[in-house]
């Protein structure tokens, strides 16, 4: 039987990226995937005939441009289409919109609060400063602060220097920002509850916390630290759906001779004498390689596909305690006509954008309270993205695909998830949208409802957590996934992690995969071919 140099478990975008770099370096790489399609949570699937669904992740900003260029992803078919313009509808028939144009944005904010319109500049400047700091660290391996190795010390110095470069006052400001709640942070700039709510949406997406919970300000940052072609904070859509990203990376992998095997679920990572030697598949096959890279989340990796006796007891405990609570649902909808939102004038440009339905931070927090009690939110936060308006490949002319991201939806629900409950959850979402769009329900051709339960079952993300582990400070940087394991190495020789459960965390960034490949190549004493971002300057 053929022996590989490296096996990557899971063909998510990070697994593919890690594999692509290993293959590019000249290694013989195999990616094994349990599903009959690749991409994990960055997929495009024809769930209903004639409509292409980005049925998990749905927008793109965090994908590192250096990887995009380095792996020639454009050549492999990837095109990121920038989009903008989110409109938030309020219950009283008004709305608050986001414009790309500064003057227009200012006028729009002034409709709600002149004071806040003036504060926006200060807010954006501060947030951008923090984003640009964090961007330095995305494509780097976190230092181990307990280590005295020259590499760790020099990495700490690098970090220290980047902090220092912000200036004394901004260091204090940034350390404050890191641990604050989104509500407190936003209240330092804005008075208007609607504006605060609108700005707070990024702070709770995928997060098992509410806007009032300390730590959510960082999550806000996590959603503005990406870019589209260097425009920091911008978001885009992958033409052909999010699967186009995975497909392009897979294209790069194949170009360099890597293989992908689908329908190949891994039962166990094989370890002997604290050295990894391959994987055993669910069908009984064994595939051997001295390097095994897991794209699965850390909890799944260390509690499901390794023998408990092969890893240190305290690591098993850490994996058990790893916080990966699912809090988000997805309702993907095929429409045979354009939904009408009467609050916006006919033909208004904003009708092309995304939609939200919020009034206040309180309303968002109440949605979180439901989740805390093991219920889905009866008044959920919805981010509704009309992907097909920007990307004609997703639906035929006249038809529409909309992706609805919902916060909050629990993984554990009283009595467990059933098809009836799933359907009721989907109805809650449709009801919410219908309050603002009278014809919405009648246009529905098909809808796919995904609770954290389905996301776990199909994609394999424990509890359906979209970030492969919560983005709280106890699980970020050198704490991600656990202290002592932040440099992508597992406990056994030859074992690595490459998923979003490792630094820099969730989102379709491909950085985790690239960073892990860099560490692997270093251990193999091969030249580094993985780009190291150095921020924007």
């Amino acid at each position, binding site marked *: 039987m053929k022996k590989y140099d490296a096996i990557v478990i899971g063909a998510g975008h990070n697994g593919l990226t890690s594999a692509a770099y290993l293959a590019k370096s000249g290694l013989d790489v195999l990616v094994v995937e349990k599903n009959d399609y690749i991409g994990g949570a960055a997929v495009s699937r024809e769930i209903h005939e004639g409509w292409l669904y980005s049925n998990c992740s749905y927008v793109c900003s965090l994908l590192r441009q250096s990887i995009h260029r380095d792996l020639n992803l454009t050549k492999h078919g990837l095109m990121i289409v920038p989009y903008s313009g989110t409109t938030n509808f309020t219950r009283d028939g008004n709305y608050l919109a986001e414009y790309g144009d500064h003057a227009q944005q200012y006028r729009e904010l002034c409709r709600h609060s002149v004071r806040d319109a003036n504060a926006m500049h200060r807010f954006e400047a501060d947030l951008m400063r923090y984003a640009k700091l964090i961007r330095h660290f995305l494509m780097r391996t976190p230092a181990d*602060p*307990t280590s005295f190795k020259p590499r760790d010390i020099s990495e700490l110095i690098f970090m220290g220097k980047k902090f220092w470069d912000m*200036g*004394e*006052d901004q*260091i*204090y400001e940034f*350390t*404050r*920002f*890191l*641990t*604050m709640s989104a509500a*407190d942070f936003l*209240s*330092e700039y804005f008075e208007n509850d609607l504006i605060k709510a609108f700005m707070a949406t990024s702070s709770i997406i995928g997060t098992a*916390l509410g806007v*009032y*919970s*300390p*730590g959510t300000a960082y999550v806000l940052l996590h959603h503005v630290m990406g870019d589209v072609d260097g425009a920091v904070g911008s978001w885009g859509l992958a033409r052909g759906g999010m699967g186009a990203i995975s497909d392009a990376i897979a294209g790069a992998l194949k170009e360099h001779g890597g293989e992908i095997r689908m329908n190949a679920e891994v039962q166990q990572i094989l370890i002997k004498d604290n050295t990894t030697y391959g994987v055993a598949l669910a069908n009984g096959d064994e595939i051997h390689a001295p390097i095994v890279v897991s794209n699965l989340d850390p909890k799944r990796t260390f509690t499901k596909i390794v023998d408990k006796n092969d890893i240190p007891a*305290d690591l098993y405990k850490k994996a058990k*305690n790893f*916080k990966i609570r699912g809090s988000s649902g997805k309702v993907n909808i095929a429409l045979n006509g354009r939904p009408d939102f009467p609050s916006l004038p006919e033909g208004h440009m904003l009708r092309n954008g995304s939609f939200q339905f919020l009034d206040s931070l*309180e309303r968002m*927090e*109440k949605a979180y*309270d439901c989740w*805390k009690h093991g219920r889905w939110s009866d008044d959920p936060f919805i981010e509704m993205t009309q992907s097909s308006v920007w990307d004609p490949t997703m639906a035929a002319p006249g038809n529409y695909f909309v992706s609805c991201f919902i916060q909050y939806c629990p993984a554990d629900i009283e009595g467990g998830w059933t098809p009836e409950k799933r359907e009721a959850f989907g109805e809650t979402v449709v009801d919410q949208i219908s309050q603002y769009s009278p014809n919405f329900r009648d246009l529905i051709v098909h809808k796919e409802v995904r609770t954290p339960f389905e996301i776990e079952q199909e994609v394999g993300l424990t509890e359906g957590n979209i970030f492969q582990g919560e983005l*709280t*400070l*106890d*699980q970020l940087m*050198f*704490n991600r996934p*656990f*202290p*002592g394991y932040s440099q992508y190495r597992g406990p056994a020789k030859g074992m690595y992690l490459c998923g979003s459960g490792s630094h820099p965390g969730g989102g379709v960034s491909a950085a985790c995969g690239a960073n892990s490949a860099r560490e692997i190549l270093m251990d193999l004493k091969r030249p580094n071919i993985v780009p190291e971002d150095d921020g924007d300057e």
Partner: protein
Amino acid sequence: MSKQYDAIIIGAGHNGLACAGYLARDNKKVLVLEANNFIGGMAATREFAPGFHASVAHTLPQGQSALISDLSLKKHGFELAAKNLDTTALDGEGNAITFNGKSVKGVDANDQKSYGEYQSLLKKFAKVLKPTWNKRAPRIGGGEIKDMITFAKFGWDVRTLGRDTMREFTRMIFLPAQDMMDEHFDNPLLKAGLSWDYNVGNILAPRSPNNAVLNQLLKLSGDVSGHGGLPLPKGGMGSFVNALANSAKTSGTEIRLNTRVKRVVIENHVAVGVELEDGEIIHAKRIISNADPKTSFLKLLGAANLEIQFTNRINRLRTEGLVAKVHLALNALPNFKGMTKPEGRMILAPSMQYIENAYDQSKYRSYAEDLPMEVVIPTLHDKTLAAEGKHVLSATIQYAPRDVEGGWDKHRDSFMKNVIATLEKFAPGIGDCIEASELLTPADLEQQFNVEGGHWHHGEFAIDSWWMNRPTYGASQSKTPVSGFYLCGAGSHPGGGIMGAAGANAARAIIAEDK
């Protein structure tokens, strides 16, 4: 022109008096001005009903033995009624578990074993932070050797924890109380009881990340009855402030009651004195404010004397109090379900979820029917607070938002009804023993003790407002941007609780300046 003082301290709270004590010991002429007709602020023991006495702060977990010996407080009348109270968590169904800084009773063997490990881990963490509390907060860019030593020492202490403990430290410091509890224990009552201290006094609940562990570590800095002990002062907390006042007075400090400061007098950008409400102006070389930072900067000093960004940094401080205090005058000792007789400190909260539920109400400017609370009956140990056979019940109640919808005047009665109803569930028949009661909402604390927002700690105690960010950079070393004007209250480093360290730190900063 009145006579010249070295320092005027605005507010005779325990930090102001501690600051006065240290300055006076250094032969400085100090005048303490107090707006109320009593000293001690929230630490004062007051007669809340004829013959019944209580203080808002009732126990002394953060007390510093160095302060007590430096200022000879024992000589000046400070003594403990109980050295170390045990804490009993009750669920109202007859179950109880009891713990102190060393051991726990009423839980299974696993939890007992975990408890020991947990306590020793926390004590290691507390030891790392201990040297920071009683020393001025360092500045990052000040370039002063002293600050660099503080950083280096802190870094060294973290590193010498050992690799595994250091890793737990950098992770756990950000955990919410709930995760700390879930990682260590199974017993819901133990989790609820232990998690209480992580959050009380702040805008936090068991699920709130980032700030809970820091709060617990601040509590563990106290060493009057050993780290992790819970001492009960004799005569209420007032005896502690009286001892502070006596100590300061013995060294020559003057204290004037009923003297409200209207504003700090600024001449040529330097604070040179204070103007009282009656128009009298008193001059001093230094003006030290024991008031909270918002009152100090925005009311006493005035935004006109501050740079706009600094003003903004003060304005944004979170100062909304969430804790109410209830004092009950009892004619008999109540019986708590699950205990043969009431003892020590009792925490009424069956589970962390129960506490979280109460917090959830407060987010929407309301309050829960089932209120979690901490109950102490100081008269069990201290006969000076009520007549023989009578008792005082002192309850700290979460969560009572300062800005309750419609204002507290509208809600006092219904809140009190919820308090009594909750107490009845845990101690049936208690209602029949009540002779009189006092409810202090955050609005009352604000109004009676002149603390903006009625916040226990003069401002949220959290990682984002801790150490060099307390109350904000530019004012974290007791000095402020206005020359001659200093802070010595709980809003400055290291923070709240009856600790006195903020006052001592301010005094040390001033004494060092004169050297």
